[in-house]
């Protein structure tokens, strides 16, 4: 009975291995960079991480549902362009709120486009979202041919806040985890995991598989809107390719966090941890004085080792059993 519960716990909380990995990497990082946990440094890193965290959360919903979204990066570029167009240095709080709503709304429309193609036209998610990513990238260039834009200085200060000595990003993460816990206890979550795990069996059981698949891409679009908002608030300006490189990072973070790429297993906590792991690896390489020209290679090797970790773990366990 106890072993059943334990097994259950480990399966539900797929991020435990990643959490361990993050702890190890953080201690290595701390030994090389002793001001790591100083509020100013911590706040700075978290502020630059938040956009990717938000994006990876959206991506993990898609991946859990059995899909993948290669368009989230350029979607962020497009939504940043929307925000920069709508906000200027004199914008009022209401204007800004409207702009953020607009960005999330456009994100939802863009996500629906992906969702329609994948779920109702039954196109391959990899090819489809790769194709739509160029649509978003094209729109971004039309909206913002030259880098630019300005936001009120109060807004940047607001985004840099540390209420009660804790960076704002941690509050956002807290809200995300709370919402996820709530969603996890609804029927929608059961449908989401069932669809990702075995869509045929889910269909036979009466799960509205198409609607569920569609919804995951809408979530991804919505979170791309939030990510674009965080990115604009932290940089204060935009350019038409600012988010393009975030797509692959969002997928790697999702997988690093223990979410299964073929769907049906995982959660957003893993994605958040995954983003942090990616950042800490970069920190370690920087502070360990790895020669500049080797940094990309070392970074890649560590990521591959981290990705292979759970697999190696299982392999060793099977060999020990024999």
């Amino acid at each position, binding site marked *: *009975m106890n072993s*059943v*519960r334990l*097994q*259950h716990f480990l*399966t539900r909380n797929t991020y435990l291995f990643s959490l361990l990995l993050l702890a190890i990497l953080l201690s290595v990082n701390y030994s090389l960079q002793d001001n790591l946990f100083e509020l100013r440094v911590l706040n700075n890193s978290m502020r630059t991480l938040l956009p990717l965290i938000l994006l990876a959360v959206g991506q993990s919903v898609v991946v859990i549902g059995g899909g993948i979204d290669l368009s989230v990066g350029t979607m962020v570029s497009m939504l940043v362009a929307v925000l920069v167009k709508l906000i200027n240095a004199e914008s009022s709080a209401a204007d800004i709120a409207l702009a953020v709503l607009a960005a999330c709304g456009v994100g939802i429309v863009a996500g629906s486009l992906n969702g329609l193609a994948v779920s109702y036209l039954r196109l391959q998610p990899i090819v489809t979202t790769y194709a739509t990513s160029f649509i978003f990238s094209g729109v971004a260039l039309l909206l913002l041919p030259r880098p630019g834009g300005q936001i009120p200085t109060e807004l940047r200060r607001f985004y840099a806040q540390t209420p009660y000595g804790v960076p704002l990003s941690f509050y956002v993460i807290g809200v995300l985890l709370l919402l996820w816990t*709530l969603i996890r*206890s*609804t*029927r929608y979550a*059961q*449908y989401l*995991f*069932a669809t990702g*795990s*075995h869509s045929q*069996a*889910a*269909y*036979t*059981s*009466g*799960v509205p598989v198409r609607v569920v698949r569609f919804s995951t891409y809408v979530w991804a679009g919505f979170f791309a809107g939030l990510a674009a908002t965080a990115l604009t608030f932290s940089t204060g300006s935009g350019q038409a390719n600012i988010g393009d490189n975030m797509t692959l990072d969002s997928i790697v973070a999702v997988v690093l966090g223990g979410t299964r790429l073929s769907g*049906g*297993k995982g959660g957003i906590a893993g994605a958040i941890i995954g983003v942090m792991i990616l950042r800490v690896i970069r920190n370690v390489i920087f502070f360990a004085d790895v020669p500049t020209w080797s940094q990309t290679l070392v970074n890649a090797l560590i990521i591959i080792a981290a990705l292979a970790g759970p697999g190696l773990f299982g392999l060793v366990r099977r060999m020990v059993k024999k």
Partner: protein
Amino acid sequence: MTLTLLAQGIVKRYGGVIAVKDGHLEVQSGVVVTLVGANGSGKSTLSKVITGVVAPNEGQLLLNGVPVQFPTPQAAKKRGIAAVYQELSLIPDMTVAENIWLTNEPLLGGISLRRGEMRRKTQELLDLFAGTTSNNLTPDTLVNTLPPDERQIVEILKAISSQPRLVIFDEATASLDRSQVDRLFELIRQWKREGMAIVLITHRMDEIFRVADRVTVMRNGQTVGTVNAADTTDREIVQMMIEGAAAPDAGRMPQIDTTAPVRLEVRGLRCGRLQRADLTLRDGELLGLGGLQGQGQTELLLALFGALPYAGTVILGGKPVRFRHPRDAMKHGVAFVPGDRATEGLLLSRSILENFLLPSWQRYGIIHDVESARQDATTAARDLSLVYSTLDAPASSLSGGNAQKVVIGKWLLRRPKLLLLNDPTKGVDVGAKAEFYALLRQLTAQGTAVLFYSSDDDELLGLCNRVLVLQDGLVRDELSGERLTRENLVAASMGTTHEQR
């Protein structure tokens, strides 16, 4: 509330293939109907029409006399119709409780799952099978850690959990052990008394007489009749299953020389679903394997080819062997022709030449002597009277019958001593079949021993001198000479044998 469901004139076509051409089924509250029929008689398809998984081309469903349509499984479920499917509908990464209540979860305020409630109600359901399952089966167990019998039980409980008025069990007993089947039948009798309507699809004759009130028999996609279980005999049911079937084509293999050396001897072979097989096969003999699909025939062939691990003794050409990989079997002159040529037998996008020579390249040196390979392939293609454009055309350009010839032809180049055939003529047209039979004749004349599984009874009756009938992983009967009749073949595949005549 009582219920009467009547399906009449059901027709279902898949492309040009007719799965059901005239299906009838009637079932009422408080009645157990068993639906029986040989391979491909349409019983699964008919039941899927009733549960909304398959949309019929013609015919109608009447629920309490009112015409209804079930475009989706949910629609049927809403009207109280549930099914226990053969190919399971469970989500591997979810727990037993989550699976049973999927789409039917108890909710708090219409939003939040009541997990405690789910767990408690699941335990109540699991208690129905208490004593016949392991301690590992709890509401919190993940389904992918369960053995097949317990998965089947979860599947049954899932169907029951919505308190349906009609349940269809599609071969639900196939993977259950004896005590679990006994318990299921006790439960079925109880549910029947409570007013449930039950349809049981089964391949076991004894089960019909244990629980059924009525027996509906299907043959070639048609319902041929319904009888009361109390007024019938297993002999009568078998007669209904085979009645009026065409006499098999002449052209059996010549009687084989009983003094020919024994090529293959199998003793107590166990492998997956196959519980025990014993057989002897002589050089030049064509031995048939019959029975309903999925009774262990494929496992037997794959084990002999070294593709599945097995227990037991295999003696090939007088020497005990144990193949761990198809490569070992091939070295000993064993060849295997798979049933699904598209996925297992051919590299569709590669050339005909490559497909022919795939198992044989090593004969042409480390740096391939492509010219002599091409000559051999051309000869083989001529021997097979293969219709093709050039040897360099992709295998996908061949018609079904010709593609199957390549699958067999690639082994002929190796001159096998033992040929294993896994339902090789499925979906092959009549002309190609005739050529294929001629090929078999030629091979056996050269002394190749052939073990031939076919899901087509006519083919076994027409070709073989001896047929082993498998049921539930056991060799139920060995038919030869006068006893090799359609009646005996069908009876044995349902688990009864007519020794008395």
